[in-house]
C-alpha cells in the first residue's frame, strides 16, 4: 500500500504519516540538551570542586553540616542530576558510534540509562537523608 492510499483510507494529513520518520526523528533535541547540561555543569562543576576543596580536612560533623545547608543540598542535587544526564547523553553517542552489533548496542544503551538512574536516585536519597535527618 502506497503512502497515498494510506492517506485516502485513513483520511489523515500526509504530514501526520511522514512526521517522525526519516533520519531526523527527534531532531536536535539530543544535541541541544547536551549543550544545556554542559553549560549548567560549567557552573555547578566549578562550585562542586570549590566546595570539596573547602571541606578538605573536614571531620564527619563538619562535612555533614556543610551538605545539610539548604543551598548546598539544593546545588548538590542539581549537580548530581545534571552530571548523570550529561553522562548518559555522552555515553549514548559513544556507544552508538562504536558498537555495531545491534543487540549489544541496545543492551548497553539500556544499561547506562538504568545505572545512571540508580546512581542519581541513590545520590539524591543520600543528600536528602543528610539534609532532613536532624
Amino acid at each position, binding site marked *: 500500500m502506497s503512502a497515498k492510499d494510506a492517506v485516502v483510507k485513513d483520511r489523515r494529513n500526509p504530514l501526520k504519516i511522514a512526521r517522525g520518520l526519516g533520519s531526523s526523528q527527534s531532531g536536535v533535541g539530543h544535541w541541544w540538551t547536551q*549543550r544545556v547540561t*554542559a*553549560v549548567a*555543569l*560549567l557552573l555547578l*562543576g*566549578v562550585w562542586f*570542586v570549590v566546595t570539596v*576543596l573547602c571541606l*578538605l*580536612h573536614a571531620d*564527619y*560533623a563538619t*562535612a*555533614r553540616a556543610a*551538605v545539610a545547608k539548604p543551598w548546598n543540598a539544593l546545588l*548538590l542535587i542539581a549537580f*548530581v542530576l545534571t*552530571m*548523570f544526564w550529561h*553522562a548518559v547523553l*555522552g*555515553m549514548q553517542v*559513544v556507544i552508538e558510534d562504536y558498537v*555495531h*552489533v545491534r543487540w549489544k548496542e541496545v543492551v548497553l544503551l539500556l544499561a*547506562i540509562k538504568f545505572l*545512571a538512574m540508580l*546512581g542519581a536516585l*541513590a*545520590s539524591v*536519597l*543520600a*543528600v536528602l*537523608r*543528610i539534609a532532613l535527618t536532624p
Partner: protein
Amino acid sequence: MADTQRPLSPHLQVYKWQVQMVSSILHRATGIALSVGTLLVVCGLLYLAGGEESFNHFKNLIASPVGLVLLVGWSWALFYHLCNGIRHLVQDTGLGYGISQFVRSSWLSAAGSIVLTVLVWAYVLTAGGAA
C-alpha cells in the same frame, strides 16, 4: 566493526598524529572516564549519609595510594573536559574554525587542564595532603 564486506575508508592509523585529533579523542576519553568517575561522587554521598564510621572509611579509601592515583586522574579528566568543553561551546557558535585558531585552542585546553590540575593539587599539598 560492522559485519560488512564493503571496503572501508581509512581510519585513525593512516593519519599523522596532530593536536586537533588528540584534543578530540581526549574529550571522548575523559568523558568516558568521568562517567565512571560519577561513582566517586555517589560513593562519597552514600558513605557520608551512612554515618561517622563509614565516612572515615571513605576518607581512608580515597587517601590510599590507589585512591590518590584515581583522584589525580579524575581531577585532570574533569579539568580537561571542562576546558575543552568550553572550547567546543565556543566552536558551536561558529567561531575558531581557522586551522591556526583550531590548533591554538587545542593546545590552550590541554595547557589549561594541566594548570588547573597542578593548582588544585598544589593547594591540597600546601593544606596538608589529601583527606
